């Protein structure tokens, strides 16, 4: 057997809310391999890696590096041991150049001052050595997501990382960028680097990795050589049962228009034009998906339609009424409901109970008043009912929602947003970071709502989700609609990638079909 460069033994981690994220987990990697760490959202992959990188501390267990026990108290220590991490959300300073970002914290000096030229040289050398092509002088803010990721990888390597942890690196990439990343990672492997690749996309694991460790519900389920197992095998290990991953849906029956968005332009606070002449409409009974790499204007669209953002040009009409003139409450009363992409900030109030979180859009209505006070019985009844209908796993409606897992929190959000009788449902990244069971539940709910006559706007960075759930499809690139497909089932992932990257762009006439 090959030597373990690193092993984590019997790791247990409990979060302050009582959630057991890891339970007696064992994880070890060989030198010079690409090792996949897979598991559902919430299985404990990120937690395990955070402990390896020193941003969380294990409650039990030990970490061995080259056979010697080490204490990794913070990321600086981890970097000292040659462990580098590339987070899903990049830790870069956008206003600085690539070279600045690479040497940040270890700047080369000349005469006591920052030596820009030396920094750029370091960047250039590293870029060549590792075959990760980036321009040292470019400002990070101007880079695409794929390039930013390269900068992150370089940053870890420049700091002497021998073990590289990549947390779902492909989640933000197009198929083309993913291919490029894999070539680069394989190149690193030939140079003797060790890579931990966190993912839940199994075909990527098959393609790239040597071995795979599967986590489920915070435990190690198994370690296998990738060549010995099929995608189905891994999937079964991850979920513990066979899950139906397809969605039951009939062809959409389009009715009258609910949402009409016309010629939206928006310049953000940094002076960048983030939306360029965006127009589309959604009729009742249809799910319109918006695909695209994150940060290409999707969030802005959702903010504008939901009434959270009013500094834009153009018109938004919901049920024939101008949305700009309405407060958020008026919009909601006019039939809009909204799942925000940022669940913790907008979706819930963490210290509030589950019941309090479920009534935030309707507590003021007459049916919940009893004299001068709130009708607690009625609210309790509603909460119990929704907990059951949406299958929320909890200790009861009075439990603070922050104690729930991500998937269950999102079910509470959905329980509120899906039961307000809305005509338009904006679902922005509705299944981000939640387990497969909860994701499938929510996707099927969206289809159910569509069949009930709602118009659904689904924004998702998860390509397979947006392609499978949507009836019609818009692709956004750089604040612009780059493609519109009347029938989402006819599109290929490859094609989508090209439109997402902005390498292809439909003619204006084709895109105009989105708004009629």
């Amino acid at each position, binding site marked *: 057997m090959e030597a373990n460069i690193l092993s984590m033994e019997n790791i*247990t981690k409990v979060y302050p809310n009582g959630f*057991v994220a890891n339970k007696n987990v064992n994880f070890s990697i060989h030198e010079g391999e690409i090792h996949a760490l897979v598991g559902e959202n919430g299985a404990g992959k990120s937690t395990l890696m955070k402990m390896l990188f020193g941003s969380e501390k294990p409650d039990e267990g030990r970490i061995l590096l080259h056979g010697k026990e080490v204490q990794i108290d913070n990321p600086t220590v981890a970097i000292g041991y040659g462990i580098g991490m590339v987070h899903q959300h990049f830790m870069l300073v956008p206003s600085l150049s690539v070279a600045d970002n690479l040497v940040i914290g270890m700047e080369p000096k000349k005469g006591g001052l920052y030596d820009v030229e030396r920094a750029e040289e370091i960047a250039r050398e590293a870029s060549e050595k590792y075959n990760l092509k980036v321009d040292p002088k470019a400002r990070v803010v101007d880079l695409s997501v794929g390039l930013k990721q390269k900068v992150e990888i370089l940053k870890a390597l420049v700091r002497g990382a021998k073990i590289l942890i990549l947390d779902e690196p492909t989640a933000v990439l197009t198929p083309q960028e993913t291919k490029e990343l894999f070539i680069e990672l394989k190149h690193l492997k030939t140079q003797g680097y060790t890579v931990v690749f966190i993912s839940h996309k199994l075909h990527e694991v098959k393609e790239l990795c040597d071995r795979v460790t599967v986590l489920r519900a915070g435990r190690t389920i198994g370690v296998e050589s990738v060549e010995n197992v099929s995608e189905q095998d891994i999937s079964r290990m991850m979920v513990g049962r066979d899950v139906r991953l397809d969605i039951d849906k009939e062809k959409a029956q389009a009715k009258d228009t609910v949402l009409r968005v016309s010629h939206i332009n928006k310049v953000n606070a940094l002076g960048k034009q983030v939306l360029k002449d965006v127009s589309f409409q959604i009729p009742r009974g249809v799910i319109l998906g918006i695909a695209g790499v994150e940060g290409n204007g999707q969030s802005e669209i959702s903010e504008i339609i939901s009434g959270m953002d009013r500094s834009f040009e153009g018109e938004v009409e919901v049920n024939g009424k101008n949305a700009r003139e309405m407060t*958020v409450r008026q919009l909601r009363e006019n039939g809009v409901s909204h799942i925000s992409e940022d669940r913790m900030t907008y979706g819930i109030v963490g210290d509030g109970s589950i019941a309090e979180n479920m009534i935030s859009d309707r507590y003021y209505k007459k049916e919940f008043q009893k004299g001068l006070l709130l009708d607690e019985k009625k609210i309790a009844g509603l909460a119990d009912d929704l907990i059951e209908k949406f299958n929320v796993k909890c200790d009861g409606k009075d439990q603070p929602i922050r104690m729930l897992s991500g998937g269950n929190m999102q079910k509470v959000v959905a329980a509120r947003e899906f039961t307000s009788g809305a005509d338009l449902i904006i679902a922005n990244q509705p299944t981000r970071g939640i387990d497969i069971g909860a994701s499938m539940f929510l996707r099927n709910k969206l289809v159910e709502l569509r069949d009930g006559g709602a118009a659904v706007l689904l924004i998702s960075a998860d390509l397979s989700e947006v392609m499978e759930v949507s009836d019609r499809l818009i692709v956004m690139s750089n604040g612009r609609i780059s493609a519109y497909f009347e029938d989402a089932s006819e599109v290929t992932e490859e094609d989508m990638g090209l439109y997402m990257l902005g390498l292809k762009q439909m003619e204006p006439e084709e895109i105009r079909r989105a708004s009629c």
Partner: protein
Amino acid sequence: MNTKNIEKQFQVLRTLLAIGIAIAVAFIIICFISENPLETISEFVLGPLGSKRKIGNIITNLTPMLFVGTGVCLIFSANQTNMAVEGGFFVGAMLASVVSTCVSLPTGLHTALCLLAGGLAGAAACAIPAFLFVRYQAKPVVSSIMVNNMCLYVGLFVINHLIRDPGAGFLASWRFAETSRIEEMIPGTGIHYGILIGIAVLIGGYLYLNKSKAGYEIRTVGRNVDFARYSGIQVNKVITKAQLIGGFLAGMGGAVEVLGMYKRFQYQALTNHGFDGIMIGIMAAYNPKALPLAALFLAYIRVGADCMQRSSDVPVELANIMISVIVIMIVAERFLYKMKHKRIVAAAQKELEGKEAA
């Protein structure tokens, strides 16, 4: 035991421990400066129960705290650090004094008008930081302290120049009209009917904050303002309302205090009632439910320190040191964190094993 219960348990434990440590600190200080520490301590602990008069003192001390404390619960639940309750209390007392001395009305009605005037003055004081925040994003922490200063000098100006009784022999207003005074309730104790109003305010405040839709709005805004906005709550309206009502209660507290305890307005400086309200508010975690206990505790310590000062060589300031220690320990969120986390880990593991065994 689940995490929720452990959290609750530790909140109580933390408060009790904070009180315990503060008492220990007080005893140590007493041992150092007192010639006869045991007697001093016993006077401090048991003195307040020594006579009817002293028990009455506890209640009269506690009375204004109920008003201000309830106001603080409302304001701070909306996550607004508006300390103008201090100034609000002062101008409330001042304006009530003006109405008492300058207006003549029948008994009862006169008192009611005084309380209303006091409340409005208090609301006005708290409205300034509220407005400045909503309109210009000025931090209430800073602006409210300035407002307190303004309140003091406006109040002193009015007392000095408008309702001063030159014949009083000291700086004080005219005597309050008998029609406006709040009568003593239990003779020989100083306890006046204000305590009943205070209890009504407390209960009303509890229902408003914890059981009504307006209270739901206040708490939601205070816990997560972005979520409140997303849900369609008009955040600025809610925080303004919370501060107006909170200020009204503080001002009314000032009115009740002067009309129940004094014959003239004779404050020369801010009275610290506002900060007392903030302290007991913190101890009660801004929940009116726990407020009476916190107020009783503070009042008891105050009277105890007073007893101690009279009969021994330890000054009354000791009580304030104790209270400060308690508040600091309570706001120290990570205090006992490790112990709590260990309990949670153990409980979670046990639960997991229980589930697997089943």
